[in-house]
């Protein structure tokens, strides 16, 4: 089975979020970038488990400049066989999806896997766009994935519960929490990652279909109102008369 895993970089979950250039750009100063957790912990690790059980290969794909190479090497250290970086600016999700779909269609994969969303733009859209552009089925928010021959069986988060669904390969999925357990790369993996192939693919620029005009930080939170543990009735009163939520 040939599996393509879409890997994106994202600011570490503990990063301080700030903006520069008159609030039009994310301030990368002092920010540590990581593999987007949904891409790494769930999509990539499940892809590796499937390969270990059934054979095949796991390739990662990333759209962006050379500043992505450290997180691509991390994915290789966790166990991907090789990596592709489409050397183009990731202007928006539809442009990224077009680069990935173009590469995937030209190279024939059975399974394309993404994380359910990135933790920076929280779009949850690239997987579905890739599937439409490739004209194949898409299962979003998958928490379980098994493949038997040419048929995949999945569980996915749905309104009020879990759906058990079936789809034929080739297939695009997005992975949510529960699909696999995070793997920490070992020293051998880190050493091997240095020499694994990272193919840089040149590409024509694709225009963006959306643009961020500006960013804004939420207003500072007012100080917490503390209520004595001996007087919980006061809290009930505040929730009713002041916050008006009960």
């Amino acid at each position, binding site marked *: 089975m040939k599996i393509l895993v879409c890997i994106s970089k994202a*600011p570490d979950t503990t990063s301080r979020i700030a903006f520069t250039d008159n609030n039009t750009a994310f301030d990368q100063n002092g920010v540590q970038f990581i593999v987007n957790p949904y891409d790494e912990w769930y999509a990539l690790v499940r892809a590796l488990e499937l390969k270990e059980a059934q054979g095949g290969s796991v390739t990662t794909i990333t759209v962006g400049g050379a500043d992505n190479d450290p997180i691509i090497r991390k994915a290789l250290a966790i166990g991907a066989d090789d990596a592709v970086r489409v050397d183009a600016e990731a202007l928006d999700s539809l442009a990224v999806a077009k680069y990935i779909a173009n590469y995937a269609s030209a190279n024939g994969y059975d399974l394309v896997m993404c994380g359910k969303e990135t933790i920076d733009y929280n779009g*949850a859209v690239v997987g579905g766009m890739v599937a439409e552009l490739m004209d*194949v089925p898409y299962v979003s*928010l998958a928490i379980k994935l098994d493949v038997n021959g040419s048929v995949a069986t999945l569980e996915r988060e749905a309104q009020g519960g879990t759906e058990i669904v079936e789809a034929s390969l080739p297939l695009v999925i997005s992975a949510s929490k529960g699909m696999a357990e995070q793997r920490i790369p070992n020293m051998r993996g880190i050493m091997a990652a240095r020499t694994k192939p990272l193919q840089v693919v040149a590409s024509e620029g694709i225009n963006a279909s959306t643009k961020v005009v500006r960013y*804004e930080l939420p207003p500072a939170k007012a100080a917490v109102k*503390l209520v004595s543990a001996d007087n919980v009735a006061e809290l009930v009163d505040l929730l009713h008369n002041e*916050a008006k939520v*009960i």
Partner: protein
Amino acid sequence: MAILVFADNHGGKITKSSLEAVGYAAAMGGDVTAVTFGSIEGDGGMGNYGASKVIVAGNATSDPQQLTRLVVDVANAIGASDIVFSHDTTGKSVAPRVAARMDAGLVAGATAIPSGKEIKKNVFSGKAFAYVEACTDKRVISVLPNSFGLKASGGSATVEQYSGDCGSAGVIVKDFKPTSTDGSVPLPEAEMVVSAGRGMKGPENWGIIEDLAGVLGATTACSRPVADIGWRPHHEHVGQTGIAIRPNLYIAVGISGAIQHLAGVNGSKVIVVINTDPEAPFFKAADYGIVGDAFEVVPKLTEALKAFKSAH
């Protein structure tokens, strides 16, 4: 201006998040057509939130490819400038496909109606907002659940059957397992959430959390460590890598408030924190707090709420 809304049909009922999407489209100020699949009763309640026409495709299932063909066909037929979805579990499967098929800009997770061309959305897991513009003539918008309040207008919509072909389904639903059998509201749409963490000391102590949730009609949730060690199921984990919630009231018991947890709950309108540690970082993000032992405070709060409920 014609606006098309995709409405999700869950067991014959239009979902609350889809009704929010209808209300969002109506607030944009256009003529709103809603499209759904399967069978619904009457207009599915969508006229009441501003739809003038409802189109029902009896021949389509919840399969994203069928729904994409349906939505794009209807959007073209009515000349829709905007196609609105809920950013829920169905919208996340269909909206991106529709945007790709129409080559239209998609603003995912909108929290306010467009102001000029700008649409506000959450980014960095709720730690900031972005104002996004589509660069295309047609635009797809998905609305973050619980961010746009429902306002009934008392109207009704005309209902029409879809006569086109939605093609074959790529994804077949074999079975459905409901998260809760007690009828509690799913976390992403819950208006009240009671959540607990490692401060509860063990899974056997969750009874007082369930009692508190019970009296409020709230859904229970938990922090990541508690889900990871198996005290509570994964589907209850709220946070940056779990479920993001936006309730009116979030009560956190015995959760320290790590930045990753806050990222999943910072959309809550009111946050109450109960913790023994006055230095717990969660108090900085809370509206109300009680420093105290959960095993004493929570049962007392449950009793006080019971007294309040019987008096109101």
